[in-house]
């Protein structure tokens, strides 16, 4: 405290006042002595004249205007002393508040990152993206250049419009150390960077030019992202003007973007490169063969998204009319236009996060209620102390201030702890959220969140301390000072209110527990749903195939076959196979839309090698899977799934009837491929998505020039069944991949179990978080119940003693306490059931295999609460039963 005094200069001033009054005293005594009084008498007379000196000094100090600081410091010191005296109480309050604040801040950080993030562009709110679609908005496509050109000419809502599209296949940049780094490369219109308001950190960037067929000023130029510049070129400052290679094509570097810049926003983390996409003949056609682009525009200031949408819709009516074919006309009839930021967040993810934020808010409420209850109990217990202070002359405002300061001190400690908890929680959720939510996630807590946190702390301090303090201050002084004041009506009213608060806690906890229970049941169903394949002992490498090398060369014979043979020969490998995308892999989905016997067929396509069935144990319903006899020269064959058969078999109810059907030719002039087998349905994209029609094709029967060959050079998973624990094989397999082709070093390798687990997505994150929230809520509410009952029992010790002395059975006394607990639980559970029923709508979207209004889950959560609550009540009940009547009565 001495530092404070020195800062405010109070010590010096206090002694100055003392000296001043000393001088006064001396002069007065001297005067009297000079007038002939005896020194002793003079002293006594002067002391009498001076009167109550400490009071005089106090009043004088008040005139300095510093006294409130002094009092505040006094209060803070007192609060700290109080904390030291009852560390258990302080720890409970701080821990409870910290939990609530921590959870709320962590959730808010996640929501802030995902929903409220600011994109790294100039005025990102003005940016909108557009896509064309038909009557069903799910099947949207990009925008053809000719349509975009019309928008550019006719619309008035935009400052500018630009386009972009990802380069085909996988792209590798050859680094200065010779390694091939897989990057995301984009073909963009020359005006894109100007539209985004982004300038390179290094180099001039693209030459300013309006997009169009004649725009060729930037051909052969490339702009690199900061990450690519650093990883592939070691941050070489002389990079501008150098020739580099993407795949086999040379480009001249004209710019390096600043760190953190990316476009499109959620892109490949290894970095990006941009070249100006040159329009060609395919952009002049109107029909199905044209190129499609992503379209982005910057709205003029003051133009709303809705207004721009209306304008583009009107223009598109005329644009679509130019398509000759009715089917194509329909497919281009509508435009989807939304803010760029909004387009990046999946609606499901948004809902999940808001629901979790609400859950965190409920937890914070429970924590606040609990702390209020604790402080209320203490203020009641301290009523005599407060009354004593009042009797000694402390004003009510002064007592109120002191209690509020105590609350503030507690909640400041809680806030500091809460920040620490939040940082840890954000770090933990951050590492899993990036998998589950498919969002870029950094663990950075910004100032706004801290401001929100301070707001929350302040609210909880005011809520938790002002209210009990007000009640305590308003209570009349005399009854509290009288013996046995606790037994007055006010105390009973407090108890009733505290019981009500505990019931509210129970109700809110039940709501969280029910939500948690529903998600746990969803996860349980996920884990036990028949997947249609085995997941154990399987290692999957998502290959980074250098697609550009295989436009003319056969990727199967030159890369896949030799690689499979080498992996197969590894010690511990049972089988190795290829599949364009393993089930639930969600890496590269090939969709077919082909004309078969006069009707359109839409189905997923998976080129596979014959060994894949043995690895995954796919069961067959009819016919055979591929085998070693299927070769490039043998008859082309296909295997389909029952979903395909249900759609396209001659007899819809008999999947076997599709066997022998001739579907389509793999290349022009070749005989049509024949269906030779039907394998059982398996989960494809997600466990809770219905199975879509799917066709498997034998990898070795695809070659350059085939219609379906190209996707197989982009997407391929290597699946390995191992004898030993799979993780041990990862390094060996990685070495083999690197040897097969340097680009394959970029491949990601994981176990099949992990892939399945990751596919649970937002449900698993939600379940994990709700487990934490629900568990914390349960803990808080048990603590609240225990705290109240323990307090009640200690307050009623005398009464209980009298009851025993008058012949009450000890069992009756425990029953008394348990009955009170029972009432709180019953009321809490009744209200909570209503809340849970009402809030079920929020979680409905995440549930699978369980109804939102599931009686069993509700009953389970209620029973759990009851059991925990009664266990918490048991200890005070035992204490009530073991009251010693002599001990209790002696105090009377």
């Amino acid at each position, binding site marked *: 405290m001495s530092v404070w005094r020195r800062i405010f200069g109070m010590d010096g001033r206090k002694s100055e006042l003392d000296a001043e009054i000393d001088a*006064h005293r001396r002069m007065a005594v001297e005067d009297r002595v000079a007038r002939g009084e005896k020194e002793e008498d003079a002293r006594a007379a002067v002391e009498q004249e001076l009167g109550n000196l400490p009071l005089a000094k106090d009043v004088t100090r008040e005139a300095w205007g510093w006294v409130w600081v002094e009092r505040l410091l006094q209060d803070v010191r007192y609060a700290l002393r109080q904390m030291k005296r009852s560390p258990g109480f302080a720890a409970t309050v701080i821990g409870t508040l910290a939990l609530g604040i921590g959870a709320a801040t962590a959730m808010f950080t996640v929501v802030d990152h995902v929903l409220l993030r600011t994109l790294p562009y100039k005025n990102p709110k003005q940016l909108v993206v557009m896509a064309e679609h038909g009557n069903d908005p799910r099947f949207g496509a990009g925008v053809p250049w000719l349509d975009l050109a019309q928008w550019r000419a006719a619309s008035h809502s935009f400052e500018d419009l630009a386009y972009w599209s990802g380069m085909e296949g996988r792209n590798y940049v050859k680094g200065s150390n010779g390694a091939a780094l897989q990057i995301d490369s984009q073909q963009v219109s020359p005006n894109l960077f100007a539209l985004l308001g982004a300038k390179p950190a290094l180099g001039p960037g693209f030459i300013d030019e309006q997009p169009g067929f004649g725009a060729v000023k930037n051909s052969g130029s490339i702009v690199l992202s900061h990450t690519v510049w650093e990883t592939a070129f070691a941050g070489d400052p002389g990079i501008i003007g150098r020739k580099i290679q993407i795949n086999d094509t040379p480009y001249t570097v004209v710019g390096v973007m600043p760190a953190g810049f990316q476009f499109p926003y959620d892109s490949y983390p290894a970095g990006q490169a941009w070249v100006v996409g040159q329009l060609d003949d395919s952009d002049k056609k109107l029909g199905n063969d044209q190129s499609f682009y992503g379209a982005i525009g910057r709205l003029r200031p003051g133009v709303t998204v809705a207004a721009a949408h209306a304008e583009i819709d009107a223009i598109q009516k005329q644009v679509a009319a130019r398509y000759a074919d009715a089917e194509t006309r329909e497919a281009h009839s509508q435009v989807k236009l939304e803010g760029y930021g909004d387009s990046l967040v999946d609606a499901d993810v948004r809902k999940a996060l808001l629901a979790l934020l609400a859950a965190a808010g409920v937890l914070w409420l429970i924590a606040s209620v609990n702390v209020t209850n604790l402080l209320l109990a203490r203020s009641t217990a301290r009523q005599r102390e407060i009354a004593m202070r009042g009797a000694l002359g402390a004003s009510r405002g002064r007592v109120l201030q002191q209690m509020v300061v105590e609350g503030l001190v507690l909640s400041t400690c809680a806030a500091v702890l809460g920040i620490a908890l939040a940082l840890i929680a954000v770090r933990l959720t951050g590492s899993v959220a990036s998998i589950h939510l498919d969002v870029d996630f950094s663990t950075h807590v910004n100032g706004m969140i801290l401001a929100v946190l301070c707001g929350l702390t302040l609210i909880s301090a005011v809520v938790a301390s002002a209210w009990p303090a007000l009640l305590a201050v308003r209570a009349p002084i005399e009854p509290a000072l009288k013996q046995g004041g606790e037994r007055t009506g006010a105390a009973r009213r407090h108890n009733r209110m505290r019981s009500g608060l505990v019931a509210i806690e129970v109700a809110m906890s039940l709501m969280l527990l029910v939500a948690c229970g529903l998600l746990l049941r969803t996860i349980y169903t996920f884990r036990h749903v028949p997947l249609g394949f085995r997941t154990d002992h399987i290692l999957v490498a998502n290959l980074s195939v250098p697609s550009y090398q295989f436009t003319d060369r056969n990727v199967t014979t030159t890369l896949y076959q030799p690689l499979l043979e080498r992996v197969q020969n590894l010690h511990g490998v049972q089988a190795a196979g290829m599949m364009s995308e393993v089930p639930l892999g969600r890496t590269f989905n090939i969709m077919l839309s082909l004309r078969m016997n006069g009707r359109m067929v839409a189905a997923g396509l998976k080129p596979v090698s014959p060994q894949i069935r043995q690895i995954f144990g796919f069961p067959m319903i009819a016919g055979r899977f591929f085998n070693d006899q299927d070769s490039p020269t043998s008859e082309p064959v296909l295997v389909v799934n029952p979903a395909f058969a249900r759609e396209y078999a001659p007899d819809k109810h008999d999947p076997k009837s599709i066997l022998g059907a001739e579907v389509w030719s793999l290349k022009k002039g070749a005989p049509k491929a024949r269906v030779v087998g039907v394998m059982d349905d398996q989960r494809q994209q997600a466990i809770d998505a219905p199975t879509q029609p799917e066709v498997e094709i034998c990898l070795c029967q695809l070659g350059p020039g085939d219609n379906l060959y190209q996707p197989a050079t982009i997407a391929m998973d290597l699946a390995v069944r191992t004898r030993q624990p799979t993780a041990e094989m990862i390094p060996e397999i990685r070495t083999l991949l690197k040897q097969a082709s340097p680009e394959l070093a970029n491949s990601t390798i994981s176990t099949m179990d992990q892939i399945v687990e990751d596919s649970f997505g937002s449900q698993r994150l939600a379940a994990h978080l709700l487990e934490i929230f629900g568990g914390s809520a349960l803990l808080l509410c048990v603590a609240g119940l225990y705290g109240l009952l323990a307090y009640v029992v200690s307050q009623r010790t005398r009464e209980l003693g009298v009851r025993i002395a008058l012949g009450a059975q000890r069992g009756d006394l425990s029953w008394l306490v348990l009955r009170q607990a029972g009432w709180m639980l019953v009321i809490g559970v009744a209200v909570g059931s209503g809340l849970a029923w009402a809030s079920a709508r929020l979680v409905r979207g995440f549930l699978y295999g369980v109804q939102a209004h599931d009686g069993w889950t509700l009953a389970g959560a209620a029973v759990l609460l009851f059991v925990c609550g009664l266990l918490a009540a048991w200890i005070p009940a035992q204490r009530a039963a073991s009251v010693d009547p002599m001990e209790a009565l002696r105090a009377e």
Partner: protein
Amino acid sequence: MKKEKELYQNRIELLQGTLDMLILQTLQWGAQHGYGISQALRSRSSEVLQVETGSLYPALHRMERYKWIAAEWRKTEQNQRARYYRITAEGRRQLASERAKWSGMVEAIASILEA
């Protein structure tokens, strides 16, 4: 002792705000310390007005904060260290306005009493 007691009883309760005016007036005649001020008030009021320490010092420190008076440590004639107060320009203005108010009130009260 008896005399003291009578004095105490005859003491006139100072009207709220009047003390400030009296102190400022006392300081008009020159810088003075707390004890000096109380002695001056006492002798000039023929022993009727006795200012208590509990009123005097708070008033001095308050007026110092308002910058009506300024303080410094000086030696007295008896070679004692004491805190001397001196009236400032602001204090003179304040005194003038309080005196005006005071005489207004005295006139008002007198006209009621003599009516």
